[in-house]
């Protein structure tokens, strides 16, 4: 279970607070969506969960399965099962996709006390998952994300997620830059990973993605806090009425 309690976050080198007492609980086996206007703190939340530098948690805590994440390095969080699918996946020239995937998979397995994958085991694993996501193995021989289209990058993110088998998946605006076909493929990939042992947090600006990844709960994030929570219908309502009604003030 993910428990975020009264989380206050500011940029390290600026005094402006971005998250202002955010509280949220996502039980295992559930998919929660976070929707909110631009500048509400959605991406900050995603990055803070993954442990990115440059943010300072001034108050509150993040617990994953009862364990605090706030002091952990990003790779330690990954080993604990945290995975962030990036809104803008990075290009890494000179590092082949398969090398990257394998290094990551084995680093995570090592930290979890599991045996590293042999080359045939690894290739079998990747081939199966890549096929589901309509990713050509040749694409993975190329440098990570270099020259990929927006859709290819997002599919590659979901492939990484599938290979690393995280228990907490945070998807940061995974729908941005996707056409409808790519969106369907990505959503199918995500849905295939839904499991009773896995919690998912889907961050999005638009309701459209939630037609394909149907959430158990929807939260409205605005002005650094969760302003409202509800079932999947809340997303539809937001699509109609906009965020204006939820421009809450910080406590």
């Amino acid at each position, binding site marked *: 279970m993910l428990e975020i309690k009264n989380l206050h976050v500011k940029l390290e080198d600026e005094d402006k607070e971005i998250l202002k007492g955010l509280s949220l609980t996502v039980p295992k086996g559930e998919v929660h969506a976070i929707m909110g206007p631009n500048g509400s703190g959605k991406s900050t939340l995603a990055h803070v969960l993954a442990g990115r530098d440059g943010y300072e948690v001034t108050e509150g805590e993040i617990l994953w399965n009862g364990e605090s994440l706030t002091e952990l390095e990003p*790779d330690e969080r*990954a080993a604990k099962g945290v995975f962030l699918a990036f809104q803008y996946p990075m290009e*890494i*020239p000179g590092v082949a996709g398969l090398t990257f995937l394998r290094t990551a998979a084995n680093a995570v397995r090592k930290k979890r006390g599991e045996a590293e994958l042999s080359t045939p085991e690894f290739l079998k694993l990747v081939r199966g998952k890549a096929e589901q996501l309509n990713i050509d193995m040749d694409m993975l021989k190329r440098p990570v994300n270099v020259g990929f289209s927006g859709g290819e990058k997002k599919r590659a993110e979901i492939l*990484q997620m599938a290979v690393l088998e995280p228990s907490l998946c945070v998807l940061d605006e995974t729908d941005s830059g996707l056409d409808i076909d790519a969106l369907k493929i990505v959503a199918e990939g995500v849905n295939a990973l839904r499991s009773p042992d896995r919690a998912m947090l889907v961050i999005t600006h638009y309701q459209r993605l939630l037609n394909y990844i149907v959430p158990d709960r929807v939260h409205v994030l605005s002005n650094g806090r969760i302003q409202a929570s509800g079932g999947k219908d809340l997303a539809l309502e937001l699509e109609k009425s906009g965020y204006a009604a939820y421009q809450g003030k910080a406590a």
Partner: protein
Amino acid sequence: MSIAQQITTETKGRAAPVQVLKTKAETALAEAFAQAERSLPGGDWLRQLRRAAIGAFGAEGLPHRRVEEWKFTDLRAFMREAFPLATDAVLPKPAAIEELVRDALAGADLAKAFAVFVDGRGAGEAGLSAISEVDGAFLARLADHPPPWLEAEISEVGGHVGDSTLALNTALFTDGAVIDIANGREIDTPIALIFGDAGSESRTVATRNVVRVGKGAKIVLVESHLVPNAPRQVNTLTQLVIGDGAEVVHVKLVASREGSIHLGRTVARLGANASYRPFEMVVGNGVVRNDLAVTFRGQHSSFDLGGAKLVSGHGHADTTLVVDHAVPHCTSRELVKCVLADRGRGVFQGKVIVRPDAQKTDGKQMAQALMLSQDAEFDSKPELEIYADDVICGHGSTSAEIDPELIFYLRSRGIPLAEAQAMLVESFIGEAIDKAEPEEVQDALRALARGWLAREAQSAGK
């Protein structure tokens, strides 16, 4: 070096050779020549050449920072003293030669065709392994009565006044490889020139290699200077004459160590429709200067340089290049990358001269550094001298730290910091190593880079 030992005195900002005062190192080198002269190989022709050369060296002295070509590599400051000339080298045992051949470029099989030198001397019969297509010999054995072409080549590159380290090589070289490839020979097997050292004393070592590649011939030359066991001041020169339509790949590896200086030089002249693809790799924490002079003598030829330098400690790695587009329709490319740790310093100077007749010249250069430390330094100086009007010439240079966004991306996938950094450094340097050929050599260079990174990560973690 004391001020009194300065070779010139400056008056009102203008260097005036009022009185030639030599530094300690310069004096020692001149004395070393006088003592060793009788024992240096070569007939009268070479003796005269050597005397002229030591005279030229004496007049100019060691280059220093006020000499434009050496402004970033103050050799006079680096070489406060000159080590004694290596004259005591003993013939290595076959097992030691095998070891040198194996270690010259670990992972690549160089055992088929090689010439091994220990402290500047050919390592006897066991030090020379030829394949039938290659005519190879030790220079020292030919120097008394060289074939006319060899005498002409050495004389052409040897007698220059105006470059004192080259003159010093001519004066002092004790041996080297002579390789003559007949017209039309295409040889896939790498031909390895391997330079090691013996003993525990500090020594000066000078070698000269002469490689002639006939028309339409193809070779892969691997020149490896192994990390010295004891401090070495090496002055080594490889001259290549590349015939019309010939293709030469030339991989040069220098493993350096603190307290050592490697002055390397390559002089290549290309005929028409020829291709010269050198790759230089420098690893370590010593002082390394590689001078590369390339002249196009025939049209439609190409030169493509790759470089990867991994510098740590107080290491210094300088690549200084002069490409002379003397004729039209030639192409030159340079991609040199430096990874600089600790107080490591990388230097790239790339001069491209396009002569008035050299229309349709196409030249591009790029020098890049990845700084792993706040104390590292990178100096890059392109110099384009273009006298023709219908040419494409460009240059670029970058220096940067590892992108923290990329580090976060890798770490978010579970890859620990040190490993993430190593991956990104490898990806940076890998783009340059991609240019090295053949594949076996490229893999070996990549492994070498990986080993360096692992050692760096380990020492950083301590």
